[in-house]
């Protein structure tokens, strides 16, 4: 059973990321705060007796469900599905050289030259904006894998899909982000 301190530490460590992730999804600070608060309370009431090691996965699952519930209530799920299909149609870029682009973009992030031209804070805001523009499933997979640092199996459990789907979503998200960031001038 997680102690009060373990639960406090865990919630402290995830609350800001959880808020940001939810903002990317729902694009509304107040709604995101409500979702995070509901998720925290649900975790505390129903799963506080779980070992501390299980809390991250359970919390991510609760967050995902709470966000989905919010979308259901807002009746915007169709718009999300539309976004997914929009992205799929634009994925067949024959001139897209993945290795070259990833290498150059990855090398440019956080470098002095980029910071000099745009400003680090602006770059961060731009990255957030581009992440928020990702289709929902891709964004969720990307953030769970590379921000929450869950492994593929854990991400699949949280998202309720196969590991193959997680890999596909993550890969597409990385490609989309790399392309869009380069288009915004972050890549050289």
């Amino acid at each position, binding site marked *: 059973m997680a102690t009060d301190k373990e639960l406090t530490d865990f919630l402290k460590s995830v609350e800001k990321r959880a808020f940001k992730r939810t903002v990317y999804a729902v694009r509304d600070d107040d709604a995101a705060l409500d979702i995070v608060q509901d998720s925290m309370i649900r975790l505390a009431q129903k799963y506080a007796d779980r070992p501390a090691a299980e809390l991250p996965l359970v919390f991510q699952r609760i967050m995902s469900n709470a966000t989905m519930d919010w979308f259901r209530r807002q009746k915007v799920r169709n718009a999300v599905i539309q976004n997914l299909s929009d992205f799929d149609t634009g994925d067949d870029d024959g001139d897209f050289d993945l290795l070259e682009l*990833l290498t150059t973009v990855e090398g440019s992030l956080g470098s002095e030259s980029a910071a000099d031209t745009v400003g680090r804070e602006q770059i961060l805001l731009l990255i957030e904006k581009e992440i928020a523009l990702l289709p929902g499933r891709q964004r969720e997979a990307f953030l769970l894998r590379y921000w929450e640092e869950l492994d593929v199996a854990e991400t699949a459990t949280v998202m309720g899909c196969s590991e193959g789907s997680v890999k596909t979503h993550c*890969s597409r998200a990385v490609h989309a982000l790399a392309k869009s960031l380069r288009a915004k001038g972050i890549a050289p």
Partner: protein
Amino acid sequence: MNSTVNRQAAEAERLEARFGLRLGALLNEQAARTPHDISERLRVAREQALASARSSRLLTASTDTVVGNGRSAVLGRLPGWLFRFASVMPLVVLVAGMVLIDEWHDRAQIEAAADVDVNLLADDLPPDAYSDAGFVEFLKEDAQ
């Protein structure tokens, strides 16, 4: 040929992971700049969650104590089947008691009727006298 493709796929996957983790680190940096009012609201939400965790733990603990004490005070640590049997016992005792009370009441009525019969038969006055309206009236006046 296959090994080249596999190597390229592995390299792409590795680069994707590096790129993703690098972006994740930048997102952490941005998350740390969360405005004060949002941070405060998150703190309040966290404290509310912790309070509800404490109250639900207390509720669970007090329920366990009541059940545990109930068992230990009355019956001690009994096996499940014996505990169920012991739970049914009061009901059995209650039903048996009601049957006994009914039986005792019937016997008491029979004995009272028998006493009346005995007294009537043993008395000098013939039982037919009680069907006489004048004699009944006499008894009423005598009682007053």
